[in-house]
């Protein structure tokens, strides 16, 4: 009744191509982002630094992976590795050139990660499907090994775990939860908007053409190598950015173990559960993967079975696995599809059709 596109007459091409063509969508998204910036006024420190900050960081990583897997159709299991590259690059930029603004550091880290992504993306021209997925594992393990073994990356720290330098922007201290939240949120919004626009533009269309049928795409004039490498570069840029934000705004320490294979799978879960080839799905997926373990934790805490911590963590693992399977069976296209169906319903509500 209220949410509809009837009576919405577009008179210019610009209006037709708008990112949110329906008025209500546009208002809703502006309101949502506005509210998100007001959250620190009401949310507690715990909510900000343990739930919302990781949620946004994971969303950025999921957007990065979704560009590669969902839009370009290149299955990658090396996300953790690219995040690690971003994290270590940011750390090294920050301690070796302390004058650099943190934003510049983050972007440089993303660029380094993009470069590494291009190198590991080179085989994708020949290798396809699950062969490529296993081949990207090579990058995951190699990068992990590199950061553990080569002491230069960790600035010759002996423990292998190093804390990130304190963050300042134009002389302001950014170590408080609210400040960190705001900067992560701003980065996330910027990433989401650029990603959304990228997939709507020529490069996004050529990614999708490659995904749907790369031979056919090549015949109609899409250059496969360039398109695939750009996908790898953009994807790794976002993943590297997420890794850098992880270090500076979330846990504050740099350790290769934080970006192991399980991290890659976690982010792949977000992409698949959220919905392949959607930007909004990345946020749903990240929310699901972040919130579910916390929810299960609290649920078990409520039930109060003291002393069986081991059993509980295993039960959690089993429930997590089962929920993933159930969700995939119920809606194989992910939560973004559910959202789409819901919106379709709302357009004609309260009538059935």
């Amino acid at each position, binding site marked *: 009744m209220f949410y509809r596109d009837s009576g919405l007459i577009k008179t210019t091409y610009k209006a037709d191509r708008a990112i949110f063509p329906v008025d209500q969508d546009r208002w809703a998204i502006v309101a949502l982002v506005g509210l998100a910036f007001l959250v620190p006024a009401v949310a507690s420190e715990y909510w900000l630094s343990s739930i919302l900050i990781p949620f946004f960081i994971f969303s950025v990583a999921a957007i990065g992976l979704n560009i590669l897997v969902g839009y370009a159709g290149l299955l990658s299991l090396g996300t953790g590795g690219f995040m690690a590259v971003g994290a270590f690059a940011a750390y090294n930029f920050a301690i070796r050139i302390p004058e650099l603004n943190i934003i510049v550091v983050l972007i440089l880290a993303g660029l380094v990660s993009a470069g590494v992504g291009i190198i590991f993306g080179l085989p994708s021209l020949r290798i396809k499907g699950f062969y490529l997925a296993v081949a990207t594992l090579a990058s995951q393990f190699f990068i992990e090994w590199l950061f553990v*073994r080569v002491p230069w990356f960790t600035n010759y720290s002996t423990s292998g775990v190093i804390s990130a330098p304190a963050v300042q922007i134009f002389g302001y201290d950014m170590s408080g939860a609210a400040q960190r939240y705001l900067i992560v949120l701003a980065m996330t919004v910027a990433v989401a908007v650029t990603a959304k626009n990228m997939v709507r533009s020529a490069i996004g269309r050529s990614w999708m053409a490659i995904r749907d049928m790369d031979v056919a795409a090549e015949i109609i004039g899409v250059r496969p190598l360039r398109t695939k490498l750009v996908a790898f570069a953009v994807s790794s840029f976002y993943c590297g950015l997420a890794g850098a934000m992880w270090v500076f705004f979330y846990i504050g320490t740099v350790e290769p173990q934080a970006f192991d294979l399980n991290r890659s799978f976690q982010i792949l879960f977000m992409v698949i559960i959220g919905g392949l080839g959607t930007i909004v799905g990345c946020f749903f997926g990240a929310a699901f993967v972040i919130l579910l373990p916390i929810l299960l934790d609290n649920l078990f805490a409520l039930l109060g079975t003291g002393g069986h911590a081991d059993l509980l963590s295993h039960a959690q693992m089993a429930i997590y696995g089962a929920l993933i399977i159930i969700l995939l069976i119920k809606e194989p296209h992910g939560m973004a599809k559910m959202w789409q169906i819901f919106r379709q319903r709302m357009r004609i509500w309260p009538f059935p059709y």
Partner: protein
Amino acid sequence: MPTPFFVLEVALSGLLAGLLYSLVALGFVLIYKASGVFNFAQGALVLLAALVFVRATEIFDAMGPATVGFWAALLATMAVMVLVAAAIERFLLRPLVNQPPITLFMATIGLTFLIEGISQMIWGSRVYTLDLGIPDEPWIIHGLYIGKIDLFAAAVAIAMVIALAVFFQFTRIGRALRAVSDDHQAALSIGIPLNFIWVVVWSLAGMAALFAGLVWGAKLGVQFSISVVALKALPVLILGGFTSIPGVIVGGILIGVSEKLAEVFVGPVVGGAIESWFAYVLALAVLLVRPQGLFGEKIIERV
């Protein structure tokens, strides 16, 4: 300068380790061939099979003489694996039929969490010892050390591959399996029951998991880290090709030997522990030349 003898010794230990990887990779290939599913849960199945076997041996040992107990436990574990296969078919594959491969892949990762979670809930996370009755002492041939368990594992791996090859080639079900792996729809249209075939294939993969679990369990003890072994099977898999059973053996041997040689002779130069990624990089290099692996079916694309 390493002596040729030392090189031989390292290569031999790599060869035997490689055959162990092949045992795990075998389960992947079986399932991929028949259903096109990249089954990430194979490692979890190995863990589950080993744990069930340990429990079954405990139960049967209490009841009768040890030799009978071993075979009874083996049969019981096989039965459990068939049940697990049937359950996976019913609750995972059937509802997800016709979904894109990546969705099925993620579902098997979910399955991995489920199996690992449940088996650790039941068995806890302690290390169980698994005794196959093979003494853990090496044979020494002209000063060359060969572990008896390794030899046993190699024999099991080769025997399984031969048995499977015969099964695929000469039995009725084997023919049906090959038909399904060629073309699902064509197989369905000539009356091959797809659901039944899937149960058979997952059961076979369960058997492969059981043997892998027995051998790895006897070597390392039955513990959670067994399921990580599956990750080592992946490069073997892509090196040999997803669809080739003999490729699994060749891939396993190649990976095992080159990995051990690299670890011993190249590792110290670059800081050691290159075993974690060497196999993957080797497989990647082979893929660049042959994108379908050494023995995989040639990938033909039609527009």
